[in-house]
Structure formats: structure tokens, C-alpha cells
């Protein structure tokens, strides 16, 4: 599918119908999800109503990680095949990805305060998400600092891949570190059981967040592809032929 979409014309045709589809799924997902999360689901036996924060925290964290995976895959394609569309895609995934990472941290912090009376804990998951935020910031900084964007794309793709390989290493190290230093009971607010009353709002919000990410990315990729096309057209206008005289 990637090589199919790599052709800009085909991509644009795909985006034409895919973008509103993602948008509508996201909209319906959020409306339903918010209703379920805030109104139509029960409070948790232990955590009370604060479990509702899970419905915005977990989807954000999931999108943060999925966005980076997409970014790394696009970077790989960009590095191997030097494809502009892959560059554009990787860059498009970065800002929403970083935003979701930030949200995961903030909502996680707000979940922690009522649960264990502390806004921040250096536990395995939150520390890993914080490090992921650093990686996003570094990636965006590479794009921002290097003026020649083709050049920036190349360096950013290399960094993205190194980062991607490191993420399991970092996750493993941080979890191991956390198990050393925290008593076993200090774990992140866990998903309290898997009853369908909890799963339904959670899954709905996951779909909503994912569809939103898709919509956001498609919008940016489409805009950049069109911008690149019109820039090329301006530089290479078609040849003009004028006939001066016709000899009978």
C-alpha cells in the first residue's frame, strides 16, 4: 500500500475521500466517547470517578507511541528511497505525536494526584513517556534548525530511526530501574479490571483519538504535497511556443 500511495497523484485521490472519513469517524467517536466516559459509565470501585481520566490518558499515550512508530516507518522509507512524500509524512506525524505525548503526561499527572496524592512519580511508564517527549522535541528541533528542508529531512530520518530502535531499550531500562527503586505496590493507575462498562468508553475514545490522528496527518500531508506541487509548477512552467510566420 505504501508504494501505491507513494505516487503523489494517487495519494491525493486517496486523501480526497480518506480525510473526511477519518474526520467523521473521529467526530462521532468523540461525541459517543465523551458521553460514555463522563455520563454513561460507572465509577470505579477503588478510584471513584477519577478512573474517567483513564479515558483521555490511555488513548493519548497510545497515540503518542503509534505516532512515533508511524514517524519511524516513514523515516525508514524516506531514508532508503529518498521519497519526498515520506519526508512530508514523517514530519506531519511529529507535531500531533508530541502533543499527544504531552497530554499523556499531563493527564497522567492529574490522574496521579487524587490517586496517590502526588502530581508526579518517577515510575516506569511516566518516565518512559517523558523520554519519548524529549525524543519528539529533538526530532522537531532538527527540522526547525536546519534551513534546507531536504537536508533536514535526511538528518531527521536518521535520528528518528536511531530513536525508534532505542525506545524498547529505554523502556526496558526504565522499567528495570523503577522496579529497583519503588516498592512493588507503587504502579501506575492500572486499568481497573476489564469489565465491558470500562472497556466500551475506553475503546470508543481510542478509536476517536486514532481517527483524529489520521485526519490531522492527512490534512498536513495533503497541504504539503500540494504546496510542493505548486512550487514545482512555478519553477518549471511548460514550454511556450510562438509561431512567428507561416510560409505558404
Amino acid at each position: 500500500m505504501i508504494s501505491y500511495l507513494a505516487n503523489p497523484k494517487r495519494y491525493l485521490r486517496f486523501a480526497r475521500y480518506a480525510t473526511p472519513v477519518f474526520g467523521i469517524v473521529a467526530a462521532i467517536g468523540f461525541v459517543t466517547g465523551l458521553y460514555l466516559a463522563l455520563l454513561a459509565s460507572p465509577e470505579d470501585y477503588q478510584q471513584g470517578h477519577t478512573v474517567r481520566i483513564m479515558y483521555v490518558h490511555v488513548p493519548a499515550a497510545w497515540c503518542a507511541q503509534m505516532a512515533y512508530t508511524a514517524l519511524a516507518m516513514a523515516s525508514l522509507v524516506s531514508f532508503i528511497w529518498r521519497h519526498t512524500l515520506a519526508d512530508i509524512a514523517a514530519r506531519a506525524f511529529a507535531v500531533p505525536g508530541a502533543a499527544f505525548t504531552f497530554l499523556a503526561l499531563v493527564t497522567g499527572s492529574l490522574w496521579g494526584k487524587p490517586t496517590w496524592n502526588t502530581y508526579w512519580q518517577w515510575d516506569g511508564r511516566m518516565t518512559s513517556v517523558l523520554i519519548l517527549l524529549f525524543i519528539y522535541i529533538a526530532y522537531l528541533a532538527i527540522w526547525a534548525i536546519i534551513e534546507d528542508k531536504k537536508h533536514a529531512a535526511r538528518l531527521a530520518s536518521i535520528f528518528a530511526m536511531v530513536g525508534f530502535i532505542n525506545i524498547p531499550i529505554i523502556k526496558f531500562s526504565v522499567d528495570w530501574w523503577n522496579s529497583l527503586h519503588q516498592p512493588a505496590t507503587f504502579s501506575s493507575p492500572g486499568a481497573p479490571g476489564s469489565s465491558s462498562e470500562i472497556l466500551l468508553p475506553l475503546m470508543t475514545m481510542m478509536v476517536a483519538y486514532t481517527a483524529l490522528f489520521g485526519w490531522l496527518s492527512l490534512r498536513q500531508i495533503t497541504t504539503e504535497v500540494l504546496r510542493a506541487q505548486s512550487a514545482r509548477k512555478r519553477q518549471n512552467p511548460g514550454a511556450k511556443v510562438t509561431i512567428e510566420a507561416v510560409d505558404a
Partner: protein
Amino acid sequence: MLEFGKDAIFIWGAYGISAAVIGGLILRAALMKPHD
């Protein structure tokens, strides 16, 4: 407001900031101009 008890402010804070950031992302994307 919905009865969330003493922790309501954290719940609203979490949803509020999520809405703000997501709203910002949507606005940013909506203002991009794909000239179709």
C-alpha cells in the same frame, strides 16, 4: 456540573486540557489550505 465529588477538579482539568490541546491541533489543521 456532573457530580464527581472531591476529585472533580482533576477530572475536569484532564478533560479540559485534552480538549484545549486537541482543539489547538484541529484548528491548526483546519487552517492549513489544501487548494483542492
